[in-house]
């Protein structure tokens, strides 16, 4: 039991690869997963004499991001060179931004798990280029005793946006909520694939502790290498515990960069402040100052889509979704599209949202994509259930078929024999038969033990081989018993 209670102070630095068609400073295709060194040219390989020319679309996209985060779009900003030697960096400097970034200030409104709103400040959003990738081989396969390295420059020069938050988060959960909200926002802007597993969204965290109630920040530690929102939460939880133990033991926290090891579930020191690089930043002489035309910025502002926060509010206020359901729908662009589409096709919002966040979500998660599913399928499911044409279980089965093949839901229901009989004529005959076969049960009902109707419904369902609408069946039986 620690003597002092500490408060965690967390800030995140997120890197976002933009999904532009071409790279930041050359005409090479910006694609993930191509064979090594096939998406390169003299410019992104840093050949002598080549020059960088900024990609206008990438600039438009970072402005979009800045506007979505309520940042100021700087009327004058500069690219700087960040100098350090590394084999996967073709020029041995990275074109980045320093004291004059494109987007300054701003904030992102997040919602915690219990629905509490919170505003996280954004320090800056700036534009830079990605590096290549090195893979070390030989020895144990780890860097320190590798005998060779291979380099792939396909990623070199891919447009990269760095978004730096203020140290406004106080727990791993808040950090995770921020990252989720940022991801959803970027997704809605259609500027990046935001796939953490492919590295198109990467996140480093700064975390320090201070005694509860204290103003001054403690010594911060930077953690790198978190590849999912879950690993961010785990890493922060580990690090907060590590720092708490150290402080309780009277040890000072060392300002350093630590590496998160997903398998070990722990962080280890990479380098201390003394070993930190001197990047020798200076203004990039090959690129004139960025001075975006205000009318261009206005055009981009006008074209901004509805952002997750506003969308969530609309779902709750005008569509009547529960806040926690709205949050789940909005957190995922695919879910949002299916939901919006189904509602546009007149599906009842509440049940459309339930399907999208539960059974549909399970199918999409398992497949890793949307399969052959469309909003029409979702709308049909909602409608057919409401009409009593199919049971929930039957609809789920039909949906699986539709997901796999794109087959219309109604066709799948018929093909699989899932349609419920709601025809009172046909079911009425069966109900008469059930009542005739079970006179003692009928007597019990009439003696006031109305619960036995469940048994009678079961009998009727059996006779109908499961294809009866249980609701209709019960109504028919009740009419007869009470009549």
């Amino acid at each position: 039991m620690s003597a002092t209670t500490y408060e965690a102070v967390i800030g995140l630095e997120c890197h976002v690869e933009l999904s532009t068609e071409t790279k930041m400073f050359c005409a090479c295709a910006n694609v993930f997963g191509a064979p090594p060194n096939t998406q390169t040219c003299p410019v992104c390989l840093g050949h002598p004499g080549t020059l960088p020319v900024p990609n206008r679309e990438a600039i438009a996209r970072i402005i979009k991001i800045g506007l979505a985060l309520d940042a100021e779009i700087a009327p004058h900003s500069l690219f700087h060179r960040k100098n350090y030697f590394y084999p996967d960096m073709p020029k041995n400097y990275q074109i980045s931004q320093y004291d004059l970034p494109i987007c300054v200030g701003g904030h992102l409104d997040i919602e915690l798990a219990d629905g509490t709103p919170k505003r996280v400040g954004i320090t800056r959003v700036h534009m830079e280029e990605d590096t290549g990738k090195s893979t070390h081989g030989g020895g144990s396969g780890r860097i320190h005793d590798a005998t060779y390295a291979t380099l792939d420059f396909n990623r070199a020069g891919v447009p990269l946006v760095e978004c730096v938050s203020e140290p406004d988060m106080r727990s791993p959960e808040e950090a995770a909520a921020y990252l989720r909200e940022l991801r959803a926002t970027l997704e809605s802007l259609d500027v990046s694939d935001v796939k953490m597993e492919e590295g198109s969204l990467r996140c480093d965290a700064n975390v320090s502790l201070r005694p509860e109630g204290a103003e001054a920040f403690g010594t911060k530690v930077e953690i790198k290498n978190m590849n999912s929102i879950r690993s961010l939460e785990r890493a922060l939880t580990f690090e907060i515990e590590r720092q708490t133990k150290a402080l309780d033991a009277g040890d000072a926290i060392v300002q350093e960069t630590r590496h998160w090891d997903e398998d070990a579930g722990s962080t280890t020191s990479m380098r201390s402040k003394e070993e930190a690089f001197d990047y020798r930043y200076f203004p990039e002489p090959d690129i004139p100052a960025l001075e975006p035309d205000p009318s261009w910025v206005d055009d981009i502002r006008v074209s901004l889509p509805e952002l997750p926060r506003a969308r969530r509010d609309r779902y709750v206020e005008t569509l009547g979704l529960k806040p926690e359901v709205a949050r789940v729908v909005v957190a995922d662009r695919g879910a949002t599209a299916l939901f919006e589409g189904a509602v546009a096709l007149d599906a009842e919002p509440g049940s459309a949202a339930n399907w999208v966040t539960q059974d549909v979500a399970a199918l999409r998660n398992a497949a890793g994509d949307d399969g052959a599913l469309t909003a029409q399928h979702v709308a049909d499911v909602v409608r057919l259930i409401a009409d009593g044409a199919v049971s929930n279980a039957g609809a789920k089965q039909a949906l699986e078929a539709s997901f796999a093949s794109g087959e219309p839901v109604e066709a799948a229901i018929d093909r699989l024999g899932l349609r419920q009989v709601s025809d009172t004529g046909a079911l009425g005959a069966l109900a008469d038969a059930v009542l005739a076969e079970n006179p003692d049960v009928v007597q019990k009902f009439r003696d006031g033990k109305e619960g036995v109707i469940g048994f009678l419904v079961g009998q009727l369902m059996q006779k109908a081989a499961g294809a009866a609408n249980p609701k209709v069946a019960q109504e028919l039986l009740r009419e007869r018993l009470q009549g």
Partner: protein
Amino acid sequence: MSDALCDLSGAELSAKLATGETSASDVLASSRARIDAVEDRVGAFLTRTDQLASERAEELDAYLSSGAPQSPVAGIPIALKDVLTTNGVRTTCGSKILETYVPPYDATAWARLAGAGAVLVGKTNCDEFAMGSSNENSAYAPVHNPWDLDRVPGGSSGGSAAAVAAGEAVWALGTDTGGSVRQPASLCGVVGLKPTYGRISRYGLIAFASSLDTVGTFTRTVRDAASMLQVLAGHDPRDATSLDVPVAVYTEGLGRGVRGLRVGVVTEAFGEGVEPGVAASVRAAIDRLAALGAEVGKVDLPHAAYALSAYYLIAPSECSSNLARYDGVRYGYRAPGEHADSIAMMFATRGQGFGPEVKRRIMLGTYALSAGYYEAYYGQAQKVRTLVIRDYEAAFERFDVLVSPTSPTTAFRIGEKADDPMAMYLNDIFTIPANLAGVPAISVPCGLDDGGLPVGIQLTTPALDEATLFRAAHALEADLALDLRPPLLEKAG
């Protein structure tokens, strides 16, 4: 050999090619014969492109005989400083680190000349990565001044200047970061133009100091410089710093003379360190401008005195970053043997691949950009740069053209200043301010000193006013009517 085709101007050759009096192959043969005759003594080239040139000349002759329209560049033998990339032709920057480097693309400047029919005869020697004022910093060999083989041709574009002076090429391209076209042009008795920064694309100019680097021309006449710039100038989508403004017709006003032109003589032009022979020739040239009707006055550039210091912080800073890419990973020299890791390999490569002057400047620049020193050095130098720009703005409110010597001295002996970097840096005292301000400047021969060595006068105009530069330089050239034939050629005759 006074009648050799390679001694004619580009304009004269172009006229002969147009009438069919001569062919591109004949012109090339003349240039090649000259190279064969003098190159072992001059050493202007690092790479000759004989085979390519022959093929090119033959193609051109077929094209020209069809009566197709002809650019003033067509059929002219041209040499390129070896810091300009040539697709498929080795480009070394005068450095061991790029000894085997064959670029996969053409520099825009060269592509424009090639597209207009220029014939590349070879890549010229230079100070390593264009750092130097004597060509002695070439990793391969020094270049010898055709006017006196014991003397330097100037630098860093020494090979290009010497090649044009000796008739090995009719025109050449160089690069000018602090005077590297104008100073060797002055020392070799040819015309050297540094246009406005951004007027010619830098794409394919292997960077030394990006904010100062400018492609420049070597010719034997001012008219040829104008013709060459006409083809080279213009916006290039591959260079974000190239200017997207219309290109003037440079040859149009050449003959308009200098009457009424306001000429400002830079105060320091005849100050300490300027050789008497240089001062005398430049003074005489200024007197001729006055005699031709120019209004001559004195102009002060108060911050020019700090320009040299600012330059030696800005240029090395940019160089330290620009040259970081030479690491043995992707191309060029790689230190042989086993290395502890990739970084060790990179450092060994750089230690072995760069020469002493390049290392000196990388270290200077690395230091100037270091945390804690940035404001005191790089930041301060940029402020001086702003002041130099303002000096020019003020000067050009009163004058159309500024004049000074190009270099304080004529060609010095090989080895004379090699061990004294500071003395060497002072060579560029008159040329550096124009690079800091980005304004155009030209060096035109204006006489010989007592030792028979050429002297150059530098003219400077406001940004993008190359037309006035050519007009004034052409008037002076016509009036002086110098016969500038290096003694080497008489002997070679």
